[in-house]
């Protein structure tokens, strides 16, 4: 097991290098560059050229063949990609081109916002989705089953932006119970420790801050939870149905065990594998940032930030952000693999 973990961690490195390479190349294949994005309609040729020069965008992308002709070996490697990799080796993600703020600094603020939102929605999705799936499976083909499966289908196919707007309309505009967006009300302050506001406010005993942060996060979390909730419910149901038809379940029932005991002790654990996989994949997707939810609720997470950076050709942000997303995906998948071994004693990693 330990060897397996070690090997997995080692294999992450080439994957990440591959990610940097692909992102780096594809970004620069899109026409339009930061200089043009920065200057808009008013750009003049002189200023575009000067900005390109200043930002090093006039250097070759990967390797400088012209320098090789002149036997200039350091010059050969002095390319945009190599400069980027050199900085990356010191864990320096570079500065935003438009804002000049170090990417790492912004990530420290924005990634926790995304983590907080996606974890809460994942908790909502799991807490509701799994029981709904179990109930549907155990009461197969009853009214409860039909209602919850139609409900989860609606959840899966609900356009998030529409749901978000409806939530705001109802709870913020008409009922005025909740704020329409942002992470905190103006004037409310929370001492930042982890930058997860719910947790920070609890640690510092700032109950007013906790209530305010909670009132802000609840609507986006619910909006974001609908799709994974539906998927988890459906997956739990079908996986449970498969397991419930197994011989050992019939044996357990024949032994005279209670229905609840069979359901939770014998069936659920064995039905959990595909559900865990789905939860892992969904969690990865949510952590990569939910552009629509973040946009509608003005949530300062990484989704909208990276989206804007792509439109603005802010290369360092796109590079840093995607690298982080890759790490998150790899990490979540890794956790899921470990969970497999814990859930299913037959799985052993060597």
């Amino acid at each position, binding site marked *: 097991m330990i060897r397996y973990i070690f090997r997995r961690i080692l*294999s992450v490195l*080439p994957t990440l*290098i*591959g990610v940097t*390479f692909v992102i780096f*190349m594809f970004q620069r294949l*899109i*026409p*339009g*560059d930061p200089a*043009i*994005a*920065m*200057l808009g*309609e*008013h*750009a*003049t040729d*002189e*200023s575009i050229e*000067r*900005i390109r020069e*200043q930002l090093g*965008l*006039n250097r*070759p*992308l*990967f*390797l400088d*063949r*012209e320098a090789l002709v002149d036997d200039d070996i350091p010059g050969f490697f002095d390319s945009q*990609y190599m400069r980027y990799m050199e900085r990356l080796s010191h864990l320096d993600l570079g500065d935003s081109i*438009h*804002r*000049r*703020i170090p990417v790492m600094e*912004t990530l420290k*603020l*924005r990634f926790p916002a995304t983590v907080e939102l996606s974890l809460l929605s994942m908790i909502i999705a799991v807490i509701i989705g799994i029981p709904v799936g179990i109930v549907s499976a155990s009461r197969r083909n009853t009214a409860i089953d039909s209602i919850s499966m139609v409900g989860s289908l609606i959840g899966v196919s609900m356009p998030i*932006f529409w749901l*978000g*707007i409806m939530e*705001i*309309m109802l709870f*913020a*505009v008409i009922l005025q119970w909740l*704020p*329409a*967006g*942002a992470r905190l009300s*103006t*004037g409310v302050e929370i001492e930042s420790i982890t930058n997860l506001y719910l947790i920070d406010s609890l640690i510092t005993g700032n109950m007013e801050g906790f209530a305010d942060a909670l009132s802000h996060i609840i609507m986006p979390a619910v909006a974001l939870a609908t799709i994974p909730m539906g998927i988890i419910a459906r997956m739990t149901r079908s996986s449970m149905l498969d397991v419930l038809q197994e011989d050992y379940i019939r044996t357990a029932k024949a032994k005279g065990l209670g229905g609840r005991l069979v359901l939770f002790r014998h069936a659920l654990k064995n039905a959990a594998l595909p559900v865990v996989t789905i939860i892992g994949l969904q969690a990865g997707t949510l952590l990569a940032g939910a552009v629509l939810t973040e*946009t*509608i609720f*003005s949530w*300062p997470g990484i989704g*909208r930030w990276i989206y*804007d950076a792509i*439109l603005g*050709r802010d290369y360092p942000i796109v590079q840093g952000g995607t690298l982080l997303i890759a790490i998150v995906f790899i990490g979540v998948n890794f956790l899921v693999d470990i969970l497999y071994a814990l859930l299913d004693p037959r799985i052993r990693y060597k």
Partner: protein
Amino acid sequence: MTKKLFYILIALLLFSSLVLGACATTPEPTEEVVVEEPVEEVVGEKIPLTLYYMPVTRFYYPSPKEIAEGMAADMANAGFDVQLELAGDWPTYLGLRREGNLDGLYMLGWGGDNGDPDNFLNYFFGFAGADKVGDDPSTWVKSPEAREGWYANTEVAYLLYQAAINPDQAAREAMYQEVEALLHEDVARIWVAHNNTPLVFSSTVSGYVPQPVGADYFEGVVVEGSDTFVFGRGGDSVQLDPAVVTDGESFRVTGQVLEPLYQYEPGSTKPIPALAESCTANAESTEWVCVLRQGVKFHDGTDFNADAVIFNFDRQRYTTHAQHYESQVYEYYEYMWGGFDDDSIITAVEKVDDFTVKFVLAEPLAPFLANLAMDIFAISSPTAMEAAGEDYGLPSNGAVGTGPFKFVEWVEGDHVTVEANVDYWDGAPTVDQIVFRVIADDSARFLALQAGDIHGFEQAVVEDLVTAEAADDLYVMTRPALNTGYLAFSYKIVEFQDVRIREALAHAINREGLIENFYGAYGEAAVNFLPPLIWGHNYDIVDWTYDPELSRELLAEAGFPDGISEVTIDPAYGTE
């Protein structure tokens, strides 16, 4: 995964990066392109008649795709079978336009920077640096620019040159009117619309002054039942050092914290004194002496005086200045004053005494005061700039000026807060605090206003404006239009080189109909490039009538009795 597979993967990755690296060319166009091009070149290549529409909403085109569809329908009516095309996202679109590769008709627009006609016209129609060959401007020839759809008009360029150096206001006005007449006669572009940008406020708010140019005035804002004014906006500020940014959302904030020597009169484009009490020119208009306001202090306690003014201008001008950083782009200095170091039109900013400075110019520059009043040339505290170094204007430091509001905090992507400067030389503002909140989604911004989270915002969609106008607790205010949305021709297209075809298109588009459908009460059909708000607007020009019949006649006259669906690329162009 076995170990072997793993090593093979790494080897493959390294190999492919080497191969790709060797194949990747530098982003600069190399001679290779020139060698290949003539081989592939087809003489007089035929392409479908295309209208490129903008991928983003801009104030001059509130819903570009729908407007493009409307124009295409009008054109079809007059015999132009035009295809709509989305060229890519905004930077892609601008990039293609810059390279002169939007082959057909394309939508774009302009928003004024300082209310001077030169700022509108010169970028498009003036002489480029390379055109200025020899000492006699009357012999200069305007070369077609890729960026401008390969259009060139030397007569217009020469007039613009003369107007820019003429200190006589009346003479300048006449020249700009002549330029407008020439452009109209030539149908250089089809001017489509000027849009008065709507702002929506809660009825508890009063005293907001939207500016056609420069930052809006917030100091007179009163919010019933609140000491804080929360303003919603679509995007965050880029940086709060106005010298190094070009976006309106940055200026909206810096305009409250910092002040230039001159500013624009509330609600107009007229430059009036701000930190300077007066600026007067010598007879040749090559020297401007500015008398500064006394007793003014920056928010950090530093005295405002001649040294501060000189520091701010020198810092932008000299690339060797300690506060002029490699990482920063002083876009507007170059654009408004002709260049850096020795290329700058301002050749010296001299201290006459503690409260008098003299600007020495290399040549007369008629829009001097209008330039001076731009947010970019607002004066920051030299002490604060030196202390913050390269980080001046970033969220960690904000900006330090003399304005009615002081910088408090900036949470990137979320909000900027400024508070009232009670010692402001022109009297403390009425509201204690302003919070500029980012709400990127148009609908969400309107809902936030309805929910009471914000007190006002800019950029509402047409449907929400209807709701806002009907609501008792909301009202709509407009920013006077200092913008023009237009339709440009690529002169690379042989057919568009014929003025009759350009005119036929101008008569084909029902601009009043477009305004009614997509701009509502806020837009007006454009007759000139210069909006009526700017002096130099030529009221004598008779607009192209909407007349599809006339369009068809003009088309037939030009040799296309059956209309046009295909156009020809002129082989003389496109070999950049």
